[in-house]
């Protein structure tokens, strides 16, 4: 009987039962493919800043000072896109399935990865990071000739060499 069709809803309801997930007293409905917060493995990170460049909302930021370089991850801005995971050359950025990140102290949401600066053997000032210099020289042995100099000294050296070649001393 067509007029009794709406009553079929009761049949549907009894078949399906209660679909509410009793989170947080039950496991949340999150699949294994879920993208959650990221974690930077400080032992692997070289401080290159590729993740900072790729991050759309600037959750990852590079804070630079003469003696150290800090990668700051602010979960509050993170959109869990995992672009940083994609672009990290050393796979230091790892994605997790965590999303239960609420806290009442905003400091908990900041995560710092601190790098020591490499020291220029010419002028002694800090540049890049020690790990980055190690990484570069490992990948390309010939770079050892100039990888321990800061960009300024390197520039000065190149200009001096060019000037010398042009017939001046």
């Amino acid at each position, binding site marked *: 009987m*067509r007029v009794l*069709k*709406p009553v*079929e*809803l009761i049949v*549907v*309801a009894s078949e*399906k039962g209660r*679909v509410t997930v009793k989170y947080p007293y039950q496991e949340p*409905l*999150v*699949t294994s*493919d*879920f*993208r959650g917060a990221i974690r930077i493995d400080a032992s692997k990170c070289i401080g290159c800043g590729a993740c900072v460049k*790729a*991050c*759309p*909302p600037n959750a990852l930021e590079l804070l630079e000072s003469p003696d150290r370089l800090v990668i700051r991850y602010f979960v509050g801005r993170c*959109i*869990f*896109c*995992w*672009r940083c995971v*994609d672009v990290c050359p050393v796979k230091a950025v790892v994605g997790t399935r965590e999303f239960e990140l609420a806290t009442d102290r905003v400091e908990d949401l900041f995560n710092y990865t601190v790098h020591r600066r490499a020291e220029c053997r010419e002028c002694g000032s800090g540049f890049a990071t020690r790990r980055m210099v190690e990484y570069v020289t490992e990948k390309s042995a010939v770079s050892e000739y100039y990888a321990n100099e800061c960009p300024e000294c390197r520039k000065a050296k190149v200009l001096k060499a060019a000037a010398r070649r042009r017939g001046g001393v």
Partner: protein
Amino acid sequence: MPGVEEYVRLAQERGGKWVAHGDTVHLVVDPSDLRPIADKIFNEYGASFRTCVGTDERPLNNHFSITHLFTDDRSGLYIALKSYLDPDNPTAPSIADVVPAADWCELEAWDMLGIRFEGRRLERLVLPYWWPEGVHPLRKEFDYKSRPDVSLARSERVALRKEVGTVPLGPYHPALHEPEYFELYVKGERVVDVRYRGFHVHRGIEKLAESRMNYQQVNFLAERICGICGFEHSTCYALAVEKAAGVDVPERAQFIRSIVLEVERLHSHLLLLGVAFHLLGYDAGFMHMWRVRERTMVLAEMLTGSRKTYGINLVGGVRRDINEEKKSKVLSELGGLVKDFKRVVEIAVSAPNVKRRLTGTGILPKEDARRLGVEGPVARASGIDKDARRDLPYAAYKYASFRVPVYTEGDNMARVLVRVEEVFESVSIIEQLLDKLPKGPIMAEKVEIPPGRVGVQVVEAPRGGDIHYVLTGDGRPYRWRVRAPTYANIPALKVMLRDQRLADAPITIASIDPCFSCTDRVVVVRDDGVVERLEVGASW
């Protein structure tokens, strides 16, 4: 059926320039020729008007420009009608009287760029009433971080007509999901007129993309234009940039994009059907429809890593693959989903009062639909056979065969039925594409984007045709324009709500499946307090 030659001739015979590249015909004409040519394209050739884009090109060539974007759905062509304007006093003739669908985008160009349109009334559409005069945010000298000094000591009159009662709907209402404001003028139970004021949440997305994002980051920004149809925005943007730069996207990536687009369409339509039932008081239909929808959300999470804001699009391809295990899971899940959905819809539509209240209410006649340029299910329910997946095939849609449901009644029931049928078609498309999924990489080898190229792309969002226009610049877009489908559908509400009963107003507004997030990119406020009588095409 007009083809490339006909459109090119429009520019040639007036001494303009033209370039035909791929599926896009670019015409550059003198500003005085804009109106007759637009008239011919819209009214004689019957092309769809999508949007117009104002651009500040003074750093490039010391001109402003205005580009009107049409699509010829029968021949599958994009037509970009461009005109360069004077840098000190940019003026162009308005086409809103011959192309009523162009009304809002001209006002937006006036607000954001200061391009004056002659032959029409100019007023604030997008910017708030307290925004200072002469400050146009999309001009290149306006830094995206700057905040002009404003004084906010003004209040606005409501209930501007005394002989009828006023029922305000919004902008902050316990039942509204997004801020929008409809002022319904009622006589007893009948709605006599409607005033819409939207754009309460401007986010400056276009300016952001031009100022501080690079090409790949804009994908994620585009995804967040809307919380329901975000993926189609990011796909549309990626396709537009790929078209502009001539990037060769692997086939597998296009297939994956289409599959995920259809999954998004499923979730969006099920959402709307649930909300429609809720507005009719049939909460059981709402709950069960969203129970079915939950299955699509889990499906999306399995495929992309996130229930919404999938984040798998990049310029040049996608970031996540679909392996065999996922493929079989999707197929088995879809089978159960269709059965469940069919049962719930049949029960819901048979409920007393659901059918009665949907039928014959909120009627949009076909001619008004065409003139206002409405999109998607709203157009298809009023008899306009328009679907960008079939007319302007993009991604992998040319490999799938599907029906486009068209109804002629134009009432709320027709709009609901169009969406119900589209759900079944979407499931069929996903199954076909999964079956034909080609092997290969999912990301292009090299993505190089030269500056100065134009890409226009229409993607059929769940709500209709979404269009993105990209003018490439140096590492980031020089100009990015988004016109979401609800932007075109809202003006049609004035026609639909007129002479309807007050009780039907919520379901009528909901039947266009409004996505105010997509629409709201500017705030509108009126200064003068005159309410105009309804004239299709006149400004609000």
